[in-house]
């Protein structure tokens, strides 16, 4: 294992300590460092957005706490859900009287803990609505899309719901926007090599030298198929074909595209992938309004990438274009 760490058991806490030192104006601990709230707070009467999940996915989840994004985050161990107690602390911390959106990825551990936290928060009188990202088309058939795993596409849910909350919308409206984002985002990825959890010390599974896996989950969950390495052009076609068939996207649609690196894939390769994604969308009459290319949701040092496509309407386009800012993601309003 080649990592810049101290004690593997301190991986998460050391990371958070570093983040708090590096960006002193950004986050405050709610109780302890594993429950963090935006220092700028939630304006009175604004809906709070609480998120959380396992560590090892930066910028997910913590990096999407910021202006025009979420308000607080519960941080779990590497690839492991945080606890209900942490989520409750965050939920209380981001409640400014207008209720709280629980926005997280659809994994059972996270769901169970967020449900426990929601029950407890509700007995405090805080209204909570939960929306789960479930964009990974490799993990269930289209009819069961709500049981799919949440992957990089959660970025769009943060972006849209965060902008809607910042506009002052009420909890149902913010939840509706989050729901729009998760219902209209489709992601498919590919892994070329496994990642190593610090406390495990070796990869959890192995790949042959010329092997890739289409649809592998961000924790190494099994995907759709193992196959020999493909050219970027062929890979793009495989991913785009399946993504477009899934929603389905149609001629005349306008979309945003996220090409995400899983941790160890150079950004050069993400652009090489996008080079072939763009004409495939154009061919089918799908217009790209905005692209996001880089590391938006990682899996430690996994090698691979994913493509996410969000179908836009007038509202979501406005919300996508709104400014946002955290140390991990910045977007000024104008330009692309």
């Amino acid at each position, binding site marked *: 294992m080649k990592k810049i760490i101290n004690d593997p058991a301190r991986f998460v806490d050391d990371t958070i300590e570093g983040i708090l030192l590096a960006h002193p104006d950004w986050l405050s601990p709610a109780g302890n460092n594993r429950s963090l709230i935006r220092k700028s707070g939630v304006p009175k009467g604004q809906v709070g957005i609480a998120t959380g999940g396992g560590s090892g996915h930066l910028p997910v989840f913590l990096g999407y706490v910021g202006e025009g994004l979420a308000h607080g985050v519960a941080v779990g161990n590497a690839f492991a*859900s945080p606890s209900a107690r942490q989520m409750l602390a965050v939920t209380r911390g981001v409640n400014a009287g207008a209720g709280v959106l629980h926005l997280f990825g659809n994994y059972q551990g996270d769901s169970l*803990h967020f449900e426990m936290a929601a029950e407890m928060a509700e007995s405090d009188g805080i209204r909570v609505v939960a929306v789960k990202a479930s964009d990974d088309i490799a993990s269930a058939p289209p009819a069961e899309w709500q049981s799919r795993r949440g992957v990089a596409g959660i970025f769009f849910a943060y972006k849209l719901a965060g902008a809607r909350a910042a506009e002052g919308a009420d909890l149902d409206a913010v939840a509706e926007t989050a729901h729009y984002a998760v219902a209209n985002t489709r992601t498919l990825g590919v892994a070329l090599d496994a990642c190593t959890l610090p406390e495990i010390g070796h990869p959890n599974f192995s790949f042959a030298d010329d092997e890739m896996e289409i649809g592998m989950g961000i924790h190494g969950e099994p995907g759709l198929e193992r196959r020999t390495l493909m050219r970027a052009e062929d890979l793009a076609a495989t991913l785009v074909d399946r993504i477009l068939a899934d929603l389905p996207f149609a001629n005349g649609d306008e979309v945003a595209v996220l090409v995400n690196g899983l941790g160890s894939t150079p950004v050069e390769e993400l652009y090489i992938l996008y080079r072939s994604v763009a004409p495939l969308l154009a061919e089918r009459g799908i217009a790209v309004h905005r692209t996001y290319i880089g590391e938006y949701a990682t899996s430690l040092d996994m090698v691979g990438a994913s493509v996410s496509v969000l179908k836009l309407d007038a509202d979501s386009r406005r919300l996508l274009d709104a400014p946002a800012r955290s140390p991990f993601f910045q977007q000024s309003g104008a330009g692309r």
Partner: protein
Amino acid sequence: MTPFSLDAPAVRAAIMKATTDLEVATGQLSALDAAIGDGDMGLSIANGCRAIREELPPESADIAALLSEAGLIFSEKAGATIGALVGTALIRAGKSVRSKTTIGLPDLATMLLAAEQGIAERGKAQAGDKTLLDALIPARLALEMAIARGTTVDGAVEAMLTAAHGGVTNTAEMVAKFGRGRYLGERSRGHEDAGATAVYLLLASLATRAE
């Protein structure tokens, strides 16, 4: 042979022993979870167990409070599915013996049933779904049956363990319906379930104390 009866210090000692034994199994449990899940379960359990040993209040005459507190700590420090489910199970097991100062074999059966119900309520799984329940349910049933038959404490505990072990073995034939294993569908067959194995190890640890 003494009749089975544990007071609060004995329950506390059993918790300390079980958390130690389970932590020793970290690698084994993670490997099982890795086969059809994400491989974190051993670590989650180890984190939860270590936290219980470190944080559980040293003096307490209240068995229910001990178990509840252990459940809260475990759910917090283990995280993950296993944290929520085992945490809930411990809290419910505690509630089921509220106000008791010692627990006997029938109380153990009551606690296992409460744990089982808590897990089923929170996780929505049923017997045969390749989960914790597939070790817990047969163990609880065997214990109840042994008590009903008037078996010796040793015999009852052995019956419970044998049933739990059989339950683990049976999970190899099952297709996972919950947790990460469900993404594998048919491919989850042929692997014993990590969570069920943890339940068996927990009961086995308690048994060597109970004998």
